[in-house]
């Protein structure tokens, strides 16, 4: 039964993806010609709408709820820090209150057909590229009101437990004075964990919290990013 369910889900998702090609061209044209978006912004819009379609389809297979009430919508560009349990965590951002998002992504994802092309065009950052200047890149993104998604665990958790957070996101936040929006994603582990091929029954919930500002941690000097990391992790873990 679970394989039948997975096959049906995959069938619908693949067809929706295929249908998005002509629709994507329309969105691209609309963004570029009517809205006067830059090329990368137009591709981010396409990714956002694709995410919304994913959320719509997934709601037939799992409970999917969101709570963004604690994040003021006028927070502006930020580093979005989220826990990571599943391949689909990134898709959940289709339900987020902004689609002007870029993510730090591992190099192999850029090799996936079509996805890689679109992500490159949208300005997603290849974490395996040693030539990236993260500070400059983030400053450029935030100057255009674009937020950066980072999964500080580095890879998908192999258990439901939130893993160790690495410091990169928090060092960047302190150095560029960019706020962090903590996001907790629950249930995607039950839906599709890293070592399973079939989807499971799940109750997916995406929650965002109040922004955390680097100015509140500067007083800790060299360990400011560590204190910030600890605070953000605690917020995500114990909410």
């Amino acid at each position, binding site marked *: 039964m679970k394989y039948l369910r997975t096959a049906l889900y995959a069938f619908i998702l693949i067809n929706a993806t295929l249908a998005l090609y002509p629709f994507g061209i329309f969105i691209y044209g609309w963004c570029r010609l009517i809205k006067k978006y830059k090329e990368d912004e137009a591709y981010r819009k396409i990714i956002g709408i694709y995410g919304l379609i994913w959320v719509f389809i997934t709601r037939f297979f799992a409970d999917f709820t969101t709570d963004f009430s604690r994040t003021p919508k006028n927070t502006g560009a930020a580093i979005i820090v989220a826990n990571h349990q599943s391949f689909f965590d990134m898709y959940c951002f289709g339900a987020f209150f902004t689609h002007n998002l870029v993510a730090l992504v591992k190099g192999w994802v850029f090799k996936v057909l079509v996805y890689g092309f679109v992500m490159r065009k949208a300005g997603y950052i290849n974490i395996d590229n040693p030539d990236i200047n993260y500070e400059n890149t983030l400053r450029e993104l935030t100057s255009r009101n674009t937020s950066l998604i980072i999964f500080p665990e580095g890879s998908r958790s192999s258990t439901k437990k939130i893993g*160790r957070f*690495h410091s*990169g996101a928090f060092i960047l936040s302190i150095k560029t004075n960019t706020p962090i929006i903590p996001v907790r994603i629950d249930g995607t582990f039950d839906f599709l964990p890293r070592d399973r091929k079939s989807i499971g029954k799940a109750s997916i919930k995406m929650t965002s919290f109040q922004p955390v500002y680097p100015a509140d941690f500067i007083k800790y000097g*060299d*360990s400011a990013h*560590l204190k910030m990391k600890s605070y953000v992790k605690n917020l995500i873990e114990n909410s």
Partner: protein
Amino acid sequence: MDKSEMIERVNKALSAEFEIEPSKLNPDAKFKEDLGFDSLDAVDLVIVLEEEFNIKIGKDPVIMQIKTLADLYAFIEGKALTQTL
């Protein structure tokens, strides 16, 4: 402070900051291979140890040669001889 107390404090600081299971903290454990440290973690390690022991490590070239926990214990012990712990 004797050596066993120093080791206990190092291990406690590593467990707390880097969420490493205490069972993995044996002297032969390699930072990169066994404990999963990357270059940013190495910087954090310096900060954590400076705070824990109230010492100055900064860009001491010896820290770059540390591969195992035993190396780190020896390094901290050496610092103890030159600085007041």
